[in-house]
């Protein structure tokens, strides 16, 4: 049962092959049995899952047949879940039971999904290896000595290991796409503003977007359809109709114009990954796509710009964690300053503190123009690159990551080396465009992802291309040994 996709689950539930309760019980048992190897869950909500599954079965019995009714999922632990621990994988929120549900959580619950729990992640979504969690590193089911990617590493590991068919994640610089690539999943970062950020604990507000991780593009389409949409509680959420992502999946690719940015195939890219990516291009050509070489000349500037903008916003976003109204508070503070400094100093992990300090510095008097404004100007250059490119092509294709999953601990001593792994993904966040990563083969037994980028609000196009590719290939059906 743990191999079923969301689409197959919907059919199975409709045909009464199994009930939502049976399915969620089976997966909960699997989590209990296998997750100790992976550490992908921070909290398992078995009781709540059973109640939701029973409710879903009852709704089906009364004639409802929504595609997600009874579908088990789990949420990245930065989506607020009412009265359920919501930690952001941080000590500073180790005891935080959110007093409300995030819009994404609410929408998915309304669609009838059954939430099995909360998934591990990099602390406050800062990282690309899922090693900065207060609750310990997450392991990659394809090789338990390697990282699953981050920051949605728990989401990726749990889905890849068949503990759940799909999960929510968030992507600020690649945090859905990169772990999806490293664990052989399909993951989508929607256009900025497509999915509500209400209740999604902020890392960098102008870059964060929630999205799905699943085994197929079709499942991503199912989930995104339920997650996306206008939310009056989020000023940056866009009031535009949500496309019918499922209906768009089956469009033929004849005439699709694919752009291959030469900057994505330069130095730093593992040659074996380049090969796999080009094989995907060949496959898409067979489906009728045409290919064009393009240039995104400012791509290389994206990393420094990102590592100013994201920490700057984070330094401010994370000021609310002060030990006063919720979360961790240090023991016996002697005065206010002590309360702040020790609660935050003890509550935040090393990477979070680093980024807060970088951001604080970048915004401080005398440096604002040289850092923050400069980064925002580069941000516009990057956006302009995409606008220009999309005048000529429908989607942009390249590798999701320069390397496959690395050994646990290999980059933790040198943050900068880990930052460089984000090179292909962060441009989409800076520009706000949607991006998808899908399985594209293996290197030394480790999954490789290919990334597709599209113009604003063309998630349907990304899912369509990925789905068509998945109809003629089987990379996405491969599963890690032992899971």
């Amino acid at each position, binding site marked *: 049962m743990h191999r079923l996709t969301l689409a197959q689950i919907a059919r199975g539930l409709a045909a009464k092959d199994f009930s939502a309760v049976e399915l969620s019980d089976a997966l909960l048992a699997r989590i209990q049995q296998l997750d100790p190897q992976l550490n992908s869950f921070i909290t398992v909500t078995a009781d709540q899952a059973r109640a939701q599954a029973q409710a879903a079965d009852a709704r089906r019995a009364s004639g409802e047949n929504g595609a997600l009714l009874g579908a088990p999922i789990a949420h990245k632990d930065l989506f607020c879940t009412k009265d359920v621990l919501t930690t952001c994988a941080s000590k500073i929120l180790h*005891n*935080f*039971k959110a*007093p409300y549900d995030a819009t994404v959580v609410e929408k998915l619950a309304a669609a009838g999904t059954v939430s099995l729990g909360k998934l591990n992640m990099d602390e406050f979504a800062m990282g690309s290896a899922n090693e900065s969690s207060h609750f310990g590193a997450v392991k990659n089911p394809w090789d338990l000595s390697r990282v699953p990617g981050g920051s949605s590493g728990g989401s990726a590991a749990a889905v890849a290991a068949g503990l759940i068919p799909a999960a929510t994640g968030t992507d600020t610089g690649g945090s859905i796409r990169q772990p999806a690539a490293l664990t052989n999943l399909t993951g989508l970062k929607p256009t*900025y*503003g497509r999915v509500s950020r209400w209740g999604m604990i902020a890392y960098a507000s*102008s870059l964060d977007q929630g999205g799905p991780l699943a085994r197929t593009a079709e499942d991503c389409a199912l989930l995104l359809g339920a997650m996306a949409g206008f939310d*009056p509680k989020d000023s*940056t959420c*866009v009031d535009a109709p949500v496309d019918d992502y499922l209906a768009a999946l089956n469009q033929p690719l004849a005439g699709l114009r694919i752009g291959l940015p030469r900057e994505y195939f330069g130095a730093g890219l593992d040659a074996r990954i380049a090969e796999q990516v080009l094989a995907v291009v060949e496959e898409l050509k067979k489906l009728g796509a045409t290919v064009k070489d393009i240039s995104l000349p*400012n791509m290389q500037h994206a*990393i*420094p*710009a990102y590592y*100013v903008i994201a920490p700057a916003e984070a*330094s401010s976003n994370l*000021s609310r964690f002060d*030990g*006063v*109204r*919720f*979360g961790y508070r240090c023991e016996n*503070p002697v*005065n206010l*300053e002590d309360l*702040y*400094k*020790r609660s*935050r*100093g003890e509550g*935040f992990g090393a990477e979070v*503190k*680093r980024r*807060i*300090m*970088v951001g*604080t*510095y*970048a915004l*401080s008097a005398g440096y604002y123009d*040289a*850092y923050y*404004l*400069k*980064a*925002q*100007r*580069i*941000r*516009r*250059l990057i*956006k302009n690159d995409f606008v220009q490119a999309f005048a000529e092509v429908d989607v942009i294709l390249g590798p999701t990551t320069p390397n496959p999953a690395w050994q646990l601990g290999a980059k933790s001593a*040198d*943050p*900068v080396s880990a930052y460089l792994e984000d090179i292909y993904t962060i441009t989409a966040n*800076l*520009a*706000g*465009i949607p991006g998808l990563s899908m399985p594209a083969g293996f290197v030394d037994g480790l999954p490789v992802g290919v990334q597709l980028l599209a113009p*604003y609000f063309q998630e349907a196009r990304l899912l369509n291309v990925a789905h068509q590719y998945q109809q003629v290939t089987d990379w996405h059906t491969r599963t890690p040994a032992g899971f």
Partner: protein
Amino acid sequence: MALERSDVEKIAHLARLGLDEAEIPRTTETLNNILGLIDRMQAVNTDGIEPLAHPLEATQRLRADQVTETDRRDAYQAIAPAVENGLYLVPKVIE
């Protein structure tokens, strides 16, 4: 321009982050590595380019002036570290 120990202490104070004495040299070094990466930006010509704060360049939507919230103090304070008589408690504020 490299940060020195005193810069790091000042930044940590602004951000109200307590640092262990022992951490400071290592933190200073790491921050300098990161700033080295960031400083690559300075080579980019951005003359005449307007800063971009939001990718979509949309404008703010306005909310009708209606009271939609009810008192949920008990629920909100149930998760607070220290409260008394409905107030959040902090070490004495001196003005």
